[in-house]
């Protein structure tokens, strides 16, 4: 098993958001997590990646057999966890090249591999950039600075390609994307798919799941997974909305 979440509770500023999440993901699987606004979807991704703003109050998370919650954010990344941010952060003055070189080499160091030479690194950049059709000019700019919404999301998937994670969490990667950018981003994700790596797709809409086809769909509501089914659940939601789920839960 790649990821196992048991009874996960988490809060921010004393307010409990996650109230007992249970979720298991095997290698090679794609899981979609859907749910109405405020149900805890982004909190789950933040807690899994170790965002210090959130406090875990109960439960455990095992990632590749290791205790994920005891690791720093950077260790989680080096272990193979990746988050595509809903709102990628702009970092003026840090070039994409330096940023990625630091990241890639830290990953390599963790695996006890030597740092990439400048030319090998640039070659890797070129190769991975083409997966999401990221403009070469952007690589010389500061991280996300002045990138359009679509470019920022492409840049997330580009970073994912560079770091080759075991488990990727795509947090609302479809938000703010037009249909062409959505297709490019989704195709990028699909190209990176292997029988070993897994993906969690967090989304509001069925749209993205037309491209990235999930094995399982989970509905998150009020901090708990209230329903799990196959792909048809997402289609069902698209037609009927969330009200029937809410009603089921209230009953």
């Amino acid at each position: 098993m790649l990821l196992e979440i048991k009874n996960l509770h988490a809060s921010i500023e004393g307010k409990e958001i996650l109230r007992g999440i249970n979720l298991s993901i095997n290698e090679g699987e794609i899981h979609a997590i859907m749910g109405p606004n405020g149900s805890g979807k982004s909190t789950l991704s933040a807690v899994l990646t170790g965002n210090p703003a959130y406090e875990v109050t109960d439960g455990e998370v095992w990632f590749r057999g290791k205790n994920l919650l005891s690791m720093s954010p950077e260790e989680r990344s080096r272990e193979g966890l990746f988050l595509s941010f809903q709102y990628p952060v702009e970092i003026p003055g840090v070039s994409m090249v330096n940023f990625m070189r630091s990241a890639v080499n830290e990953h390599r160091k963790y695996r006890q591999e030597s740092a990439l030479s400048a030319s090998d690194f640039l070659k890797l950049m070129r190769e991975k950039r083409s997966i999401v059709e990221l403009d070469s000019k952007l690589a010389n700019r500061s991280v996300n600075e002045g990138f359009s919404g679509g470019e920022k999301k492409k840049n997330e998937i580009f970073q994912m390609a560079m770091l080759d994670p075991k488990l990727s969490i795509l947090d609302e990667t479809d938000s703010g994307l037009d249909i062409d950018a959505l297709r490019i981003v989704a195709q990028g994700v699909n190209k990176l798919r292997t029988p070993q790596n897994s993906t969690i797709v967090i989304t509001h809409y069925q749209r993205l799941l037309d491209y990235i086809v999930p094995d399982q769909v989970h509905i998150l509501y009020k901090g708990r997974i209230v329903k799990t089914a196959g792909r048809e659940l997402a289609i069902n939601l698209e037609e009927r909305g969330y009200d029937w789920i809410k009603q089921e839960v209230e009953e």
Partner: protein
Amino acid sequence: MMQAEEAYINLYKQHAKSVSKSCSDLLNSKRQAAFEKFQTLGFPKNTHEEYRHCDLRKVLSIDYGLNINRVRIPINPHDVFSCDVPNLSTKLFFVVNDQFYKNDKPIGLPEGVLCGSLNDLTETHVRLLEQYYNKLSEKSPDGMVSFNTTFAQDGFVLYVPAGVVLEKPIQLIQVLHGTVDMMANRRLLIIVEEGAKAQFLVCDHTLSSKHFFSNQVTEIFVGKNASLEYYDLEMDQPNITRVSNTLVSQAASSHLLINGVTLQNGLSRNNINLCFEGEGASANLSGIALGNGNQLIDNHIFVDHAVPGCTSQELYKYVLDDSAKGVFGGRILVQKGAQKTSAYQSNKNLCFTKDAKMFAKPQLEIYADDVKCSHGSATGQIDEKALFYMRSRGISESEARLLLKFAFTADVLDNIRLEPLKDRMRMLVEKRFRGELAKCAGCSAANCK
């Protein structure tokens, strides 16, 4: 406090003859008036608004020696700084403490250019240099300046006559060296006449573990249509105090760039006092102050738009760690009638710890009505979102912090127009943030491999 002044006043009274003995008439002719002024002004005190956050009492309580009898410091800076720099070839000069280090090698500068010892050149070119020496400093209300004029025995002159363009940058390396605590009264005189062009780099270093007080006065004259780039690098030790007064006069349509980087020091107080005397001139002033330990870095910049149509731009950034303290005082004065003035000032600061402190006082005084002016100052902590973003990519927290610090200073370094120097400075700033600077005794801005 009065004690410190008294000791120096008595010293001068007793040794005035010795101070003057080996010096040019021009230097000597300015001493008495300056001495009287110093007796009135004294050393700057933290009760003065301008020195409110810069308390010199402690460092002035140290019993510094002054090398009044001009004992030669036994050091050959050429040996110490023997390595050369790839790509940045400069004409290299040295000042050891406050003595110009004489070098007999031909320097190959264009005809008419003077470059060398202040004491010697004010002797041999008195007619020329009396038009400039002390002309700006005699008006200064800062006691450190009159103190300097009282005791100045040597220093450095760069004179570029009208129309001459210096192809290579001039580099001055100032070294502090000695086996006892010492004070150095450094004096620089830079004159770039009409239509002339020069690039000047001055680097301060220390080769001693003793306490030093460097009291520097730099007078800069940029002539009509002339252009000067002035790069100032402080790479000293925690046992060093530097008070520097840079006084600038800019003629019509002249261009000046000043870029100052305090990489490492104990206490740094840098005053820049710039006056536009002719229309259409521009000045670009920028600096980085990197503080750690108990360091204090205080930059006070005064730009006087006395005439119409001039442009000034300021960008000063501080990165403070540990218990370091930063002070920025930026005053822009747009005088009555100085229409079509453009004056911009920006000060941004990062405090990395709870104990690091920043005091900023931007001031804009405008007495003209057709001007474009802006100023802004912001002090903050590290961007936690950016930090987490970087860590989530596998970059360690310390490395992420380092990248963010370095990024913060990038736009100031971008002001450096000498490309090889810019690369060198980037490397030095990064080394400084990594704590790898301490060992390098050489002038790494241009030297040292």
